């Protein structure tokens, strides 16, 4: 197997007596979608936070493209190629769709220190932002303020902003949530193609989407990874069945 682009090594995090993340190791290799699933309260959000840089682990390391980023903050990790989307949309609500995407282009160009040129007049940044919006199919809403978008459209915009960064690795937290059947199908197709550009660590509750998309699946239960494998292996795994029994039905 090729070297992983994102390598999570023995991450641990406790809150008092609660071990939210217990010795978690995960790897993301080029070209794959690696899904992280687990029942509610398994510690997915805590794990994601540690990978993205919002929360410092007690032990373990996060290696991004061969570089130890454990001590770096969210912005540094983003600059090094971590493209993140959020479960609960984190967008500039008063700004338009295009402005949000432009913010991504500004970040990607690492140049927010221009004070007198109008940002919207920067043809290069604008082209990049418009291309990302078009890829997720939001071009008709380009001048709509985010506050007027539907929940599903906000999800798409989250992905579009991540695209402007041209990241080495995507970290997506429930991109299907609230999309509806048709939206989920489109997003599934889209992510299926996107993996060729950069691998995706996908946290998702929609099991149909996960089993349709993922090259590998890791199952997180009570802060521990209890199984990692192909969708077939996971489907047949007894521990996984036990953990999910009565909770969600595996497809």
């Amino acid at each position, binding site marked *: 197997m090729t070297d992983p682009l994102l390598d999570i090594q023995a991450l641990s995090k406790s809150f008092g007596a609660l071990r939210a993340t217990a010795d978690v190791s995960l790897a993301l290799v080029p070209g794959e979608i690696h899904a992280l699933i687990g029942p509610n309260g398994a510690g997915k959000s805590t794990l994601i936070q540690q990978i*993205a*840089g*919002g929360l410092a682990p007690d032990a373990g390391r996060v290696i991004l493209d061969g570089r130890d980023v454990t001590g770096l*903050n*969210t*912005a*540094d990790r*983003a*600059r090094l190629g971590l493209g*993140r989307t*959020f479960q609960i949309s*984190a*967008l*500039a*609500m*008063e*700004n*338009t769709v*295009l*402005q*949000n995407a*432009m*913010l*991504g282009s*500004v*970040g*990607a160009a*690492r*140049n*927010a*220190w*221009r*004070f*007198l*040129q*109008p*940002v*919207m007049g*920067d043809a290069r*940044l604008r082209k990049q932002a418009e291309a990302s919006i078009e890829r997720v199919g939001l071009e008709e809403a380009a*001048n709509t303020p985010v506050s007027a978008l539907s929940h599903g459209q906000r999800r798409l915009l989250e992905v579009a*902003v*991540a695209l*402007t*960064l041209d990241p080495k690795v995507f970290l997506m937290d429930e991109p299907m949530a609230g999309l509806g059947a048709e939206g989920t199908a489109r997003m599934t197709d889209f992510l299926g193609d996107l993996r060729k550009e950069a691998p995706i660590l996908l946290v998702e509750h929609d099991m149909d989407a996960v089993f349709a998309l993922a090259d590998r699946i890791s199952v997180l239960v009570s802060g521990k990874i209890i199984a990692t494998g192909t969708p077939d292996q996971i489907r047949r795994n007894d521990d996984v069945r036990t953990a999910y029994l009565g909770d969600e039905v595996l497809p």
Partner: protein
Amino acid sequence: MLRERTFNIVAFLALPLVASIALALDEPFIISLATRAAILALAAVGLNLALGLGGLVSLGHAVFFGLGGYAMGILASHAQSYVPLDLGFIVIEGTKSMPIIWLVAVVVSAATALLIGLLALRTAGVYFIMITLAFGQMFYYFTISWPAYGGEDGLSIYVRNDFPGLNTLDPIQFFGLVFAVLAAVLWVMGRIERSPFGLALGAARQNAVRVETVGLSPFRLRLVAFVISGAVTGLAGALFADLNRFVSPTMFSWQMSGEFIIFIVLGGIGRLYGPVVGACLFVLLEHLLSGISDFWLIYLGTVLLLVVLFARGGVIGALSKPDATHD
């Protein structure tokens, strides 16, 4: 109803219009009122970058206003007494030149804003308000207890400072100078709002995590905004001192900081011309109402209350309709 852009132009041109009429009617006091409004507007335009666009509610912007004022007072007092300022390692002649005084005011305010920002911007919300307030009070009490430049009594400058080619003692010429500075700063602020920096700063106010996720540091964006903001308010301080030919610790008082916030809220938070409309309205009300009653602030309070309750977009938001959509 006028479009916001048209409303802004009308409101902005009201100042020179009032000054011109006052000139025609030979009412120098009205000209000096208009000058005062323009200077206070400038101070609040500075704050508006931090508060309106950046979401940083600074209750300490009087620090920069006062520093600008004392930069003028100290330099001019040494010039008028012909006693150079001996700092031990360097001897500074005083100066009566406005451009030099402005430069000193801007540099000192910006440097101070950098130091205050480095500490205060590590906090947010109420703590940020309290820390900026605390810095303001430190400067206030320091100037009160520092006898060299008048202490509590303040410092008088007998003749207004010079600007090349102008007679600054002529009220209308000084007004013209102040108005030109205000117009220039508004132009720059308008550009900043639309720049990549402005976009990122505004986004950091709305959602700091979003800005981090695209690889930008909200802290640095806010720090730079705070420095620019402080520098502009400092420049206003130097002009204010020159208008009154007097500097006192009052310029550092927290009431001063509060007034700047009131101008912004009155006119409309985050609107480029908000502080201008707010400051003009404030000076107008002060002039009209203080003649009626010593307790005119009660009426001002009522107006402010009505604006906050019923016109969240401030006076501009209430009296104009949105511009046609554009980017």
